[in-house]
């Protein structure tokens, strides 16, 4: 049956609220592994040793069908509601149609513009440089971020996580977490400005 429209996160929340209650450990230890094993067998998936990247079309298409079926038959779990929501295959395809096919990160002369790279396109992927969530001290934060922003191959930035803010631990769920995030963003802005690329995306 055709999908009425692509889903929004609000629709998804509504489905979770009305979804079936399932204990989290049953989801983790039974539902997920059993269904993945069944789909692996159904689609006869066996990756070739020595082939990091698949060289045949059959494997990648079978894997896609298995992933699609996993999402459409097993659904998704919401931890704090303890419930499962479901989505149809038609809704998945409708949602894929709605996804952006191109995107711009950053602003001004420092934008990173990218398009889908089907297969091994000769176009270089966007390089998002940064410590990718690694812990960074307050003292070194700007300098470390500047070391990425000044690299010619870097098109966009990803920041590290500041351990402390003004000497206090940036503990999750406390006001210090908010303060540390704000400071990270201010310092990242300073780093890209010092590198002469103030418009770089983050």
């Amino acid at each position, binding site marked *: 049956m055709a999908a009425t429209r692509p*889903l929004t*996160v609000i629709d998804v929340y509504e489905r979770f609220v009305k979804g079936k209650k399932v204990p989290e450990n049953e989801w983790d230890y039974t539902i*997920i*592994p059993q269904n*993945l094993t069944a*789909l*692996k067998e159904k689609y006869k*998936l066996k990756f070739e040793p020595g082939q*990091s*990247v*698949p060289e045949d079309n059959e*494997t990648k298409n079978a*894997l*896609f069908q298995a*992933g*699609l079926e*996993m*999402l459409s038959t097993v659904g*998704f779990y919401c931890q*704090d*509601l303890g419930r499962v929501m479901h989505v149809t295959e038609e809704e*998945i395809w409708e*949602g894929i149609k709605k*996804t952006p*096919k191109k*995107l*711009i*990160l950053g*602003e001004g002369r420092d*934008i990173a513009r990218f398009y*889908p*790279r089907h*297969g*091994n*396109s000769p*176009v270089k*992927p966007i*390089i*998002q*440089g*940064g410590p*990718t969530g*690694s*812990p*960074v001290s307050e003292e*070194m934060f700007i300098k*470390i971020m*500047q*070391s990425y922003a*000044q*690299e*010619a*191959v870097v098109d*966009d930035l*990803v920041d590290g996580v500041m351990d402390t803010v003004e000497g206090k631990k940036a503990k999750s769920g406390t006001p210090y977490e*908010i*303060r540390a*995030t704000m400071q990270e963003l201010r310092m990242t802005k300073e780093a890209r400005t010092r590198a002469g690329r103030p418009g770089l*995306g*983050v």
Partner: protein
Amino acid sequence: MSASMVNNGLRSCDCHECSQMNELKVNTSFMNMIAGWHLSGDTIMIEQMPIMGGYVSSVEETAICDVAATLASFVLYNCDIHLDGPVHIRWGNTSNRECLQVAAHAARALDANTDVLLANQYYTIAGPCTEMCLLEVAAQAIVDTVSGRELLSGVAPGKGVLQDRATGLEARMLGEASSAACGMSIEAANGIVDNILHRYELNYHHAPMGKKFQECYNLDTLRPSQEYLDIYENAMHTISLCGMDF
């Protein structure tokens, strides 16, 4: 919340990033963030790092899970880019043989059947200022590039848990290896990646922690040390011996 504040918060053209939970799980806090960003027209990047050897065992099962989680990011949670990162439960890096295979198979499956924008992130087991770290980065960059990913994000050396052990030179290797792999045949890429993997995958038990940023760069000029530049050159030479034409 702080990321969206008007003064010094993220711009709409920055990636507003949040993460699914392992495996195929979220919570309401995740959905609240997405709702705010989506209604504000912000760029949304959703992260999910399937754990190889956690609730899921084989490479094939982890890859199925990876495809399902990626589709969910777009279809259920309205993201613009999905940030992948299959990670090994024992080694904690994304650059091991099994996780490279998972990421590449998932990306090729999605690339062949959709137009969605795919990213991957880099966690090496070795720290900065070591050849092993740079080899790990290069192997993954080749795999991600030939499997059609649009954005490569990194690097978090030393599994991303060591303070101040990250520098711009690892990102330079990421970009240079990716550029060199653009347009390469998959068969050639597999051969080169296999050669590079053989150079580091037996060293996981004794992976070097490397050096802190303060020891890798001159803090006044912000230029990398001669020691690190030499290591970088040696790594490029090693990768060339493995078959890569820079």
